[in-house]
Each structure stands twice: as structure tokens, then as C-alpha cells.
């Protein structure tokens, strides 16, 4: 099957979007390391309950 130039562009665009989405998710997960979570819990526990 021969693809038109437009179809190839569309496929590349979709692939790029998928890769970008994955990379974004990975960077978010990297940011959520254990130390960050521990600090978040510590911060939450140190607030006065007022």
C-alpha cells in the first residue's frame, strides 16, 4: 500500500505525540520519588489542625 504524503505526515505526528506523552509521564514519575513523597507527608503532618 502506498501512503500519500499527507498520510505519512499524519502518522509521524501521531507517533511523535505518543512519544511526547510517554516522555512527559516518565518525567512526572521521576519527579515523584520517594524522598518527595516522604517530604510531602512530613509537611502535611506538621501543619497544625486548625
Amino acid at each position, binding site marked *: 500500500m502506498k501512503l500519500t504524503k499527507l498520510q505519512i505526515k499524519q502518522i509521524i505526528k501521531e507517533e511523535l505525540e505518543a512519544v511526547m506523552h510517554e516522555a512527559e509521564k516518565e518525567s512526572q514519575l521521576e519527579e515523584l520519588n520517594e524522598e518527595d*513523597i516522604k517530604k*510531602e*507527608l*512530613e509537611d*502535611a*503532618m*506538621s501543619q*497544625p*489542625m486548625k
Partner: protein
Amino acid sequence: MSNNRQVQQAVFIIFRAMAQAASNQTNLYSMDVPNILRRMTSPSEQELMRRLIKSVILLTAGNQEVLRDPELFVDKKGMKTYRDMSSTHLMSAHVVGLNLSARPTKEDYVDAKKLLPIFSTMSVGPEEFDQFIASRPETRLDAPLISGQYGDTVWRGIHNMRLEAAKYLVNLDQWDITRSVSTSYDRRTSYNFSNKKVPVGSANYRGPVGILLEIDVGSRGLKVGSLSYFAEAEVILSGYLTIDSVEMEYVAAGSNNPLKETSLEKINQLIDMAIEDRDAGLDYRDQRVKGEGMRFDIKATHVQMETPDEV
């Protein structure tokens, strides 16, 4: 037992007596806080009591960031004095030499960081408490102080948590709280705090999750009660928490009624689902599990930690 440990235990028990006296505005006890401080503490206990009171004031009304890391302390003009941060009851600490007009120093924060974990993991049973009070005849009590005022359970609410933090917490075997945390005998205050919402988009927003911890403490913890600046039946606790059970409340797609789940495996699956849907940018209506409205009731048991002989 070294002398110093005896002094620590004495100060711990007297502080509890003060908290009980402060909580009872009726004349159940024959002495108020200033008189307990003046007449029950020996000179060797007064110095440690003064340090402990300063530490409690800093925990309840001081700078929490500095308490965690005293190196962050900045000596600023216009900083609050101990009087500004004290509850009415603790203002009587001048009788043990606390200068209420003074402003906290970096050394005070360093000392509080050292003292609070020690005092908030200590314990005293009802019998030991009563014996100690009876051993101080100089107090000349008309009616004995009684120890059975508080239950064995304390509560702690937390809110504005990310889904990831909730997942981390529910899967912990033991939670390290050795830096001291504020808890309360008042379930309602803690529950209401766990349900507080921070607006999405605000700089302080972290996440939608609220958590209510129910902690079995036995006779452990530094009971502050009405001595607290916020008058919240406060107990300061440090040590470790073992997570005994978790109940998750959530709203699933197609329903407005909250559902409950207690199986940890299913809870993990549901949190993962909520994280996936959030990360996919799904609208609230399209999410299979709604992050908003997700809350947890966690039962935990406090485990005492070792403390040094000398402070």
C-alpha cells in the same frame, strides 16, 4: 536509671498533670497550671521543664520549617515572642524562669528538635502517674489528680495529598514519625481537617486526597491538651506507626454515592486507575475512579522508640 532519666520522667508526668489541670476549668483539681509549676517542680526539674515548654510552644506556633532544619533560622526584627505564641496557660511558665518577652533563637529550635522526639515517645501508666503525684506531698492536694482523663486513641487528619502519597502511605509497613507530629484526642477536629479542600490551581494545591489516622497510643505521647496554642486536645507523638488497616472511600464512574474498599490489592488498583485517568487528562465525568473525593481511614499502632539517657 540515671538521675537524668528520672528528671525527664518527672518533667513528663508534671507536664501531663498541667495538661489535665488546664483541660479542667471546673474545680476538679485543687491546683492550676502556675501552682503545679511552682509547687511540684524541684529546682533540678525546672530547667528541663523550661526547655520543654519552649519546645512545645515552637512546635505548636513556631516556624515548622526551621524546627525541621534549624539552619534555616533567620533572626528577624518583629519576630513573635514566646508570649505571642503561648496559650494562656503556658504564660505561667515565667514561674520556672521562662522569659516570655524573649524571641526564639536558633539554639531554641535546635533544642526543640532534640527534646520533642524524646518527650513525645515517653509513656506513663495510670498507676505510675498517681504514685508520682502522691509522692509530692508539698503539693498538698485537696483532691488527687487523676490520670484517666484521656483515652488510648489519638487522631490526625491530613489533606491536600497527591494520589501517589496516599499510595505510598497505605503500603508502608512502618511509618517513621521520629521527628514528632501533632495529633489530637478530638476525632471531629481531625476529621474536619482531613476533609479540608485546597482550591485546584492555587499555589498550595498538591492533590485531592484526605486521610484520617486513628492511632492506638496506649499511655504514650506528650499530652498537651488545652496547653496548646490552638486548644485542640493535642498530643505530640514521635516514634513509628505500624499500619494495621486501611479503608478507602471513593466515587466510581456512573455513581455519585461513595463506595468503600478495604482490600489493599484493590485499593492499589483503584489508585493506579485514578492516576492513569488523571494523567490522561480525562474530565471528571470520564474518570473511572475520581481523584476528587477520595479519602482514607487508616488505623495504626504507635511503636515507642529508644531515647537517650542524657538530654
